């Protein structure tokens, strides 16, 4: 190996380590906050070693007197958002992928444009509407309004998966006299099952991480994890270990999903515009 390649290899590894220190270091430091004794959270210089304690997690998860089951609420809202989303977005994605139609580009851009709508601008109208029809604090209200984010996103991502199913398979079924809905239900959808799973996982992460809608639509008993962190922030005296514990619980599922679906992450993040 020439000196030059050795040098460039070393430089690449150094850069890689630097990236990890900058982008992963803060996360690890924050994880530590959740299990460190409260009195060591703010010491100068920072204390890098400590006796771990799981009191904060116990408080977040178990103490039923003061805390809504935020973890459960987050799960209900995110899973609900995925389940409501699929029957709307899968047929639309199928149509955009399989049929010629006028104005397809405009329809695709319209979905994309919705992702750019400022959610904050919708909060007050949603708040007033949901209060008027008496659904305030319900899981359903959150699941419903989350569709403004999850449907456009899922349509784009699902389309990219359906695009890859060979048309010959559908042609063969059609020659055998199958109707379009049988073809979609029995042939195309089973083949794109991995795509449906990946799309669901991304919709789950979007709903799971969303703080804007639960901020106005949840009640004390239906608050999700991000809202929980705000709660520990707003009460007198910031309880950092509780914030960190709730935040860590909120961080872990999306991280696991992104690491497990590593292969599809890029496609999801770009709404399918890069085939990952």
């Amino acid at each position: 190996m020439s000196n030059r390649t050795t040098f460039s290899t070393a430089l690449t590894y150094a850069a890689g380590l630097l990236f990890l220190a900058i982008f992963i270091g803060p996360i690890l430091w924050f994880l530590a906050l959740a299990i460190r004794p409260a009195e060591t959270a703010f010491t100068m210089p920072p204390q890098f070693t400590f006796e771990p304690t799981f009191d904060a997690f116990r408080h977040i998860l178990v103490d039923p007197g003061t805390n809504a089951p935020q973890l459960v609420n987050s799960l209900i809202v995110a899973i609900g958002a995925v389940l409501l989303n699929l029957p709307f977005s899968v047929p639309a994605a199928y149509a955009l992928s399989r049929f010629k139609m006028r104005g397809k580009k405009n329809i695709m851009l319209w979905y994309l444009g919705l992702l750019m709508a400022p959610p904050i601008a919708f909060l007050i109208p949603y708040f007033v509407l949901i209060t008027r029809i008496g659904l305030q604090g319900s899981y359903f209200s959150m699941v419903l309004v989350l569709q403004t984010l999850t449907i456009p996103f899922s349509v784009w991502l699902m389309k990219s998966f359906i695009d890859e199913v060979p048309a010959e398979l559908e042609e063969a079924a059609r020659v055998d006299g199958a109707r379009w809905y049988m073809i979609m239900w029995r042939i195309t959808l089973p083949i794109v099952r991995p795509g449906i799973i990946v799309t669901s996982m991304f919709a789950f992460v979007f709903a799971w991480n969303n703080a804007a809608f639960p901020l106005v639509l949840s009640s004390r008993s239906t608050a999700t994890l991000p809202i929980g962190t705000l709660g520990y922030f707003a009460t007198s005296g910031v309880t950092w270990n509780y914030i960190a514990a709730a935040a860590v619980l909120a961080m872990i599922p999306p991280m696991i999903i992104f690491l497990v679906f590593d292969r599809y992450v890029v496609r999801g993040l770009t709404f399918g515009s890069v085939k990952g």
Partner: protein
Amino acid sequence: MHSTIIRSPRALAPVRRGFVRRNLPYLLIAPSVIMLLALIAYPLLFALKSSFYFWNLQVGPEPMAFVGLDNYVQAINAFDFRAALTNTLILSVLGTAIEFGLGLAIALVLLKTLPGMNVVRALLILPTTIAPIVVGFLFRYLYDPGGGLLTWVLQSLWLPVPAEGILGSPSTALAAILFVDIWQWTPFFAIVLYASLLAVPDEIIEAARLDRASAWTILMRIKLPLIRRTAIIIVMLRFMQIFNTFDTVLVLTRGGPGTTTRTLGYSLYEQGLVNFNVGLVSAMTWITVLIVNVIVALYVFFAFRNEEW
């Protein structure tokens, strides 16, 4: 109809000629479109109507008086609103540009195939997976003037740290928020650009090398043009996301000190959900929606002009 010609996926034309058959694609799209229209048309029309009324939920549950364009005049004339617009534009333009540049640089490093680098790549995406509100807390902890890790690092490097803390000083607060956004989203650009650069065929690059093109020329003339469409979409989405941010600001600074970190998103939050001034916030909503639409329309017009679908 018994043709055995292999058709492309997009060309599966309807076979029967009934109403359902003829309009099948539109019927399949309709539920999602109707659902989305219902979800966005209501807020927009609601805001349009309310914007002409004096309506404060703290004063009364119903609109109190028709005030014409007063709310719009008030919104635009308020010093806060202009400060918010300026801050929002600074954050979204600088944020998107820096994240793209740094992301591209990291992507080019990741492209060097060395054992272990794929672990770096996989882990790098983690900041992007965290909810913005949680990232806000993470950095509030790091920035803390009395024991935050980042404050300590800066002090250890003999760099000046404002006495009020990084978030408490008017001269550093906006930069601190920009830094948080860059931390969370540079990995997103890095991973996406890395993946799209992987798809650039080696032969083209080899050919350019034989022609003695420099690495810079290859990047600017070959690689970037080939990943153009992906770049267009992620830049647009990211720009809009920063433009609409409010949760990070809420947790980090609440728009302060003074108006130095006030953004449009945060102003909407404050007028709507703290002051419950529905009339004013509706006018601000419409102004924001119009600004956003003009920017996006111009961008889409120029960026997608030559794209095939």
